[in-house]
């Protein structure tokens, strides 16, 4: 087993744990908000921001997971009807492009959150430092990079062995 696979697989396990924690928090805070507002007439001011930030975090982690399980939607119309060798080249090019783009996003988002003015920003209601929800993007994109690296290396190996890249 390659190192890339081991890293990507264990990362996927970590991602699963993260979303298994985040989604119930989202559901709970939203439901609690309704309950406290309607039944107890004392709304929870934190609930809205918490559920929103949990949602955003889960979205970017989940986006990385969708790359890992290859469920992110893509067009296969061309690659499915050309000779295997060409197909493999195109798919590898595509993976490399995606890898470079996500790397660019990681770079940009690190630049973004390391700007000193980021620390001035607090959420309007709960005064949570915005850097906490903002972190969802560099983290999610970094995870995505790791999965793309694995897919890329794996595809290279398959191409070398003259197999059809799935």
């Amino acid at each position: 087993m390659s190192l890339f696979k081991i890293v990507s697989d264990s990362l996927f396990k970590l991602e699963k744990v993260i979303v298994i924690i985040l989604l119930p928090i989202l559901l709970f805070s939203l439901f609690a908000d309704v309950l406290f507002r309607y039944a107890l007439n004392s709304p929870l001011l934190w609930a809205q921001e918490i559920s929103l930030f949990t949602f955003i975090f889960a979205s970017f982690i989940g986006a990385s997971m969708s790359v890992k399980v290859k469920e992110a939607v893509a067009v296969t119309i061309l690659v499915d009807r050309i000779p295997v060798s060409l197909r493999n080249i195109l798919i590898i090019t595509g993976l490399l492009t995606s890898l470079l783009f996500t790397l660019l996003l990681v770079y940009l988002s690190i630049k973004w959150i390391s700007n000193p003015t980021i620390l001035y920003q607090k959420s309007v209601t709960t005064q949570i430092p915005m850097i906490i929800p903002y972190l969802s993007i560099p983290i999610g994109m970094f995870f995505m990079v790791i999965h793309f690296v694995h897919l890329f290396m794996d595809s290279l190996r398959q191409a070398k062995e003259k197999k059809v890249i799935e």
Partner: protein
Amino acid sequence: MIISLVLFLLFLLLRIPIAIVLGITSVILLFFAGNLGLIINSPQRLFSALESYSLLAIPLFMLAGEIMNAGGITIRLVNFAQKFVGHFRGGLAYVNIVANTFLAAIIGSAAAQIAMMSKIMIPAMEKEGYRREFGAATTAASGMLGPIIPPSMLFIIYGASAGISIGDMFLAGIIPGILLAISFVLLVAYIGYKEEFKKAEKIPWKERGKSLIQILPALSVPGILIWGIVTGVFTPTESAGIACVIALIISLFFYKDLKLKELPGIFVNTAITTSIVTLLIAMASLFGWSMTFERIPQMIAEWLTTVTTNPVIFLLLINVLFILLGMFIEGIALIIILTPIFIPILPVFGIDPIHFGVIICLNVVIGILTPPVGSGLFLTTSIGKVKLEDFIKAVLPFVAVSIFVLLLITFIPELVLWIPSLVN
């Protein structure tokens, strides 16, 4: 502009996930426009695109769908529909439409509904001898009912950006939704007659009654949602969360099909299916933003107003514009970008913003099924394991029928405005 369009198509053909293609194209568009500063803004843009309370409905509707699938609610809805309409020629196709109509009264998102139903209906229809791509097309098309029959995420987003009542939008969607369902039924009847679909046996009334009783707890979900929204217990967005809680209670305690240990898996699935859509929304927002900065949609809108002063021609042009844009840009992003541009010019033509809203929402819902970019297209083909080109061929008649309904509500505003006018 041309370069980025070519690159866009090129990247698509490399099997790169669409969301990523949208992101890459935006960055290239900004690069060629000399807007390096805006490229640096991209992460903030991705964040802001999702920082909208209305979007919370997406994971929650998805979660409700997963719970209803695992908890046996969806299958009971399907069985129920089968006992009543299953004996007609092409019975399971009707079942698909009818069950989707019920679901549409619970779920507010086409993507969520298509994801739920694809898992159940496509294999079921194939087992009964239907072509897999026909099953997929019926499922995807019926999924369009999700955002047209209230509750609806799209209407929430439109009402929000147009500054009009979301409640009125919901009411306005009822007749178009029913028209859409009826037209799909007629289409299936025609296809079934032409391709000689087989019939199933008629079910005795006693058994039908039994399945009705069985389905009552499941039907309480839309009941509670409607009651809650109307009486102000919760907002339409929050109703998605309430749907999850009720579905959980019914699945765990009434049907008892759901085991607690299945929940983690459900959360993982929800996160993944949600993120496919939300990443698309985020990247589409980046894409729309890069176009807005170059004033592309504004130019189109300004041009439109110089072409005509006739409201019907204007609306027809809007339909053409949205169908064309809808081929490439995801619905929510289109609504968000274009609504504020068109709302101010509606009074010039004397068009009701509710009528306009239902028209453009139906347009973008059709857009989820038109190639090359469409979440409905991608969800059905990936979950249903159908080839994209086969699917497109099978879904085209449904798209054509939807465009017919679209024209109907374009020419006859009363179809949209009648129910809201009764209430106000």
